[in-house]
């Protein structure tokens, strides 16, 4: 498997476990450090505002080799909570989101895509994985449909 060889910092795993086991966070956004060597936590938050989360992804940036700032990919864990349409109560689903906007530069896209497996393998217990490439892909309604396999009410 071609992978970049980027490493995952311990804080990613710590924050993930806080989210998974202690429900301390609603979401975590991860990024590659500026030298592209390590995956680090950019933000961990307990805010339930999906739109704010979505905006953060859309406005994420990364620096190209030449120093120019452009759109940037990110990874995120989001703890989806939804009630079943059948009325059988609430469900939670830990979802891994690989966000790579099509209009980001080829270098950050390449590095994020080839480093993804390293992060995903470090985080155990992920229920669903999504790959999203434009703002339409991360509309709440369509995402919840995919995450719940159409069972959300």
């Amino acid at each position, binding site marked *: *498997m*071609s*992978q*970049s*060889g*980027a*490493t995952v910092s311990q804080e990613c795993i710590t924050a993930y476990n806080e989210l998974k086991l202690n429900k301390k966070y609603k979401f975590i956004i991860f990024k590659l450090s500026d*030298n*592209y*060597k390590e995956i680090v936590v950019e933000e961990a938050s307990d805010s339930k505002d999906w739109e704010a989360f979505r905006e953060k992804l859309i406005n994420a940036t990364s620096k190209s*080799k030449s120093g120019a700032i452009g759109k940037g*990919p990110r990874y995120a864990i989001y703890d989806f909570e939804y009630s079943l349409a059948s009325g059988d109560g609430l469900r939670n689903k830990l979802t891994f989101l*690989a966000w*790579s*906007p*099509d209009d*980001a530069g*080829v*270098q950050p*896209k*390449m*590095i*994020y*895509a*080839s480093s*993804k*497996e390293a992060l*995903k393998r470090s985080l155990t217990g992920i229920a669903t994985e999504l*790959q999203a*490439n434009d703002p339409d892909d991360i509309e709440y309604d369509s995402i919840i449909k995919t995450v719940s396999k159409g069972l959300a009410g």
Partner: protein
Amino acid sequence: MAQQPLSSAAQPTDIYGGDEVSALVLDPGYCNTRAGWAGEDVPKSILPSFYGHSTATPAQNFFGDERLIPRADFEIRNYMNKDSVVEDWDVAPKIWEHMLINRLQPDKQTAPSKNGLNDDPKEKTQDGEGDVAMEETENQEIEKLLQENPLLVTEAPWNTPKAREKTTEVIMETWGCPAFWLSRTPVLSAFAAGKATALVIDVGGANTSVAAIHDGMVLKRSIQKSPIGGLWLSSQIRSLWETSEPKVTLTPTYMVENKTPVDALAPVQARLRQFPYQIHSSFRAYEEERVLTEFKESVVEVWNKPGRLNSPGNEDFAKTLPGRVFEMPDGWNQMWREQRFKLTEGLFDETAGYPLPEEERVGKNQTIPALIRAALEAVDVDLRGNLLANVVVTGSTTLINGFNDRLQNELAAMYPGMKIKIHAAGLTSERRFGAWIGGSILASLGTFHQMWISRKEYEENGPGIVEKRCK
């Protein structure tokens, strides 16, 4: 001006493991081979994979477009086969060396009198006994040539274990690279589009392939390929010209001494060059291909309105669309209209297009829609939706106007109700050199040093290490 960064030659190259690893990237294809420094945006050296071979004694090879000129006893050959796998292992390392060393690091090359590349045959014959000694020094020096450069080489996903082993041998034994890696082209294309999971459609020069990538791995069973590609399209154009009324004669540029501009469809007024020797048919074919390429770039289009070209009414509508004039090297020129669309129709519909000789005809399982269907049927049903939402289109032939729209239409008709999203790089260079660019970024990463297969690992495990590590 004083603030300018150091040129790549002046930058330190000793921080192996830092971001300047002085790694090289080599991307061999049937039509072109691309080579350059990791970290650069485009490959610095792009050479035809076709090379000239002089059949006079002693035999010698000529690399690079500028050396492929009319000569006596001169054939054009290719070191790859049409499946994009290296076939001639005597020539491949020579072309590669010519690119990686002579073209990219000319200060490193062995003296032209010794490197055996593009020798003047006369000199060699006069050498007599001195020859043996020369060969020896040559080999010693070559061994040192790439000792400072890790090398990433791309390969087709169906590359054979034998070819991989051969490549490894050349890299480690002949060139003495400190480390190397082999990358599958569709994985690099998917990554460069920001996707670890994707359906990669690569329409190249000699073939078209479709492969499903999941979490950065090629799903072997999904791999489909077919000979439709740039060269197949050339055959379509030849067929169009053959059957045209009046018939269009393809006179390649090298044959034309001078020409006088003429009106459309008017008889050619050109004087042709005479050669005092026989021009080999392979040379002529290669030169004809240049004219065909120009025609593809400037005239050919893909039907991208609803339906196929042979759907009711579409062909009549195509006739009303604006045409394009093409002037042949000998001055013949004419307007092409609906033919422009019909040429590419066979990519999608095996019953359309112009008649071809039997060995070049494609079956109904070899069109692009058929390849996609077969690729998807070979993978887990749960994965199909995800792949259709992440279609990555790459390869030079996809640059033909209308290709992406048409592909979208075909997929929408094949998979109604599914979300279909096609990703195709906007920059021409990213579509032409997608795999090279992906390899360039990967190999330039400081962190990639832990991925490279090092000399030590190679020496402990032998060439078989490739099958274990580069999956």
